[in-house]
């Protein structure tokens, strides 16, 4: 292992306490399932809560606890990922519904 990997590995190993590391692992696993569940229609953007970007996102979206999710403006705070799945499914249904009128042929 090269120097770069050694430093990187050490930084990653000590980036989070063990319990949060396990939570992050679960979150990561769940995020990887999204492409299969929703046919690649979902794009995920992960923001580190303990960062400057995280600060402003938390302030704007009024997130006081984590993990926190925003799906097309809908909020959910907690670790029950099935709730996020439901939010995503609803957002996709609404998107489909909004698209229907513009693609439906009209009679003249």
């Amino acid at each position: 292992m090269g120097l770069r990997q050694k430093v990187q590995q050490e930084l990653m190993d000590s980036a989070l306490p063990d319990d949060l590391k396990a939570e992050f692992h679960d979150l990561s696993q769940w995020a990887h399932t999204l492409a299969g569940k929703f046919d690649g229609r979902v794009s995920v953007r992960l923001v580190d809560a303990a960062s400057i970007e995280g600060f402003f996102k938390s302030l704007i979206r009024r997130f006081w606890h984590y993990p926190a999710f925003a799906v097309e403006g809908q909020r959910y705070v907690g670790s029950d990922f099935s709730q996020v799945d439901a939010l995503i499914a609803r957002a996709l249904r609404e998107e489909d519904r909004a698209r229907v009128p513009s693609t439906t042929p009209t009679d003249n």
Partner: protein
Amino acid sequence: MNTLLAVIIGALTVYLAYTLYARRIDRHVIQSDPKRKTPAALYMDGVDFMPTNRNILFGYHFKSIAAAGPIIGAIVAANLWGWLPSILWLILGVSFLGWASDYSGIVLSVRNEGNSLSAIAHRLVSPRTRTILFVFIFFYLLLVAGAFVGIMATVLESQPKTQLGVIVLTAMGLLLGQMLYRWRTGLVGATVLTVGVTLVAILGGGWTEEVFKAFSAGLNAMSGGAPLVTYFDPTLANFKGADAKIMPSLLFWALAISAFCYAGSVLPIWRMAQPVIYVGFWITALSMVLGLSGAAVASFVKPEVAQFVIPAFKGFNPQLGPAGIMPLWPMLFVTIACGAISGWHALFGAVGTARQIENEADMLPIGGGSMLAEFMLGLLALLAVSVGAKGAPVGAFATGLGGFISVWGVPIQYATSLAFAAFIVIVLVVTQLLFRVQRVTLSEWLGDVIPPVRNQHVASLICVALAILLMMTGTWVYLWQLFGGANQMMAALSLLLVTVWLVSVGKNWLYAGLPAIFMYVTTLASLLVTAYNIYANVYGPNLAAGRMIPVIGSGLMVLVALLLVAAAVLIGVDGWRAFQRYRRQPAAQPRPAAARA
């Protein structure tokens, strides 16, 4: 000259260098192709290789390269040669060399499967180049550590107003880590509390000034008021030379900083380093935003803080008395390092940023753009010291930056406290990370031969002890110039490697080759000048006076300088041979291979 004009010149430099030169090289020489797959896309593992949005990666790259270098270098150079040569080198350096070095480091890695500079050197130049680069990096880090610990200890000891802020910053960093990761408090509230308390402590440093003065006096009384170490420093007393005295209070602050860095180096990142950096970011950002915008409008609002007061030019070889020779060439070009060109940027760009480039079209805005942004940071430091009062360089910088901040209605004593704190915070947070990298480097380098250095505490203590030895026994200005020489030599070597690669793939190599030759010759000369200065003006007089600790320290510095020269010569010879080889017969494009560092 006033600050408004300087800010306009700086903005024009950024615009012209980017649009007229950098973009042209990107299109016609490198031919960046948005459709070509990058290593981040090819080898995505979610850890090392990760396609990242251009805006986020710009912030990440800039945060990693912007440290104390552009600030300290500009301060020291303005005091040695005047503001005019300093601003000219900043402008010309970043326009023709700096962006090219940063951008090319990323290009080189992206076009070579995300490999690091040392791995590419191993393949393109010669196997021994990789080993030499490894040793080079360790001593380079040692010089940075010595220079940074030295200047922080001096500022803290001489400015008791700053001490409360640093202590509270440490405490608030630890508290923030506890709140976020253990108590799971929301970030907004935790930020308001910890940053707010730190800011109050910084602004209110004057409240405890007398307490800390008494504390220092108490420490110094322990040795009966006698210094622990006395050495001849030719750069003191406005370069007339004088005996420097290491008092117990200075040693105390050096040890306190070392303890901070030691803790930052061995504790989990979440416990200390990350939250301290986070709190420190707000303090620094606040100072820089208020300072830069204040510098731009000061000519209209508060003209007395916008006029340059230091001489424009002090001569090509200022009469420095016993400080030895200090010719503008080559010494200016290593004294101002990061704001004009920096080897660290190329090194980091190649091993870190390049592996996250999502699209080849992002290489220029991220690599070149970050360097141009860092130039503005160096320019701000130069403006601050140019309008600041006479005195110690950091004091002049804080006075100048404080003046810019005061434009916005902040009382000058608070504005100056904020400027001092910003300086210390920038240096402190970088130094703690630097010790971590240095510890790992030492363990990798000597771990097989000397097994105890594999232990993180042993390795950290060795790094800290060496840095303190350099600080206590060397001469700070020379130490800084030695670091600058090593840093700029790293830039020259990365440009040399880029040149070899360009010729190996049949591209026009001049845009990287000419800066490589200039920086290589300049930094070799500067290392030799610095080695001579230390030997003739520090080692010799102290040896004659029988002062053994400074003799050991300055002897170590001379050895490091000569070692760096030898390493650079070996790499240069190998690089030249490779260059000639590829000119005769360009290499085949590299086959896809696993990336390595």
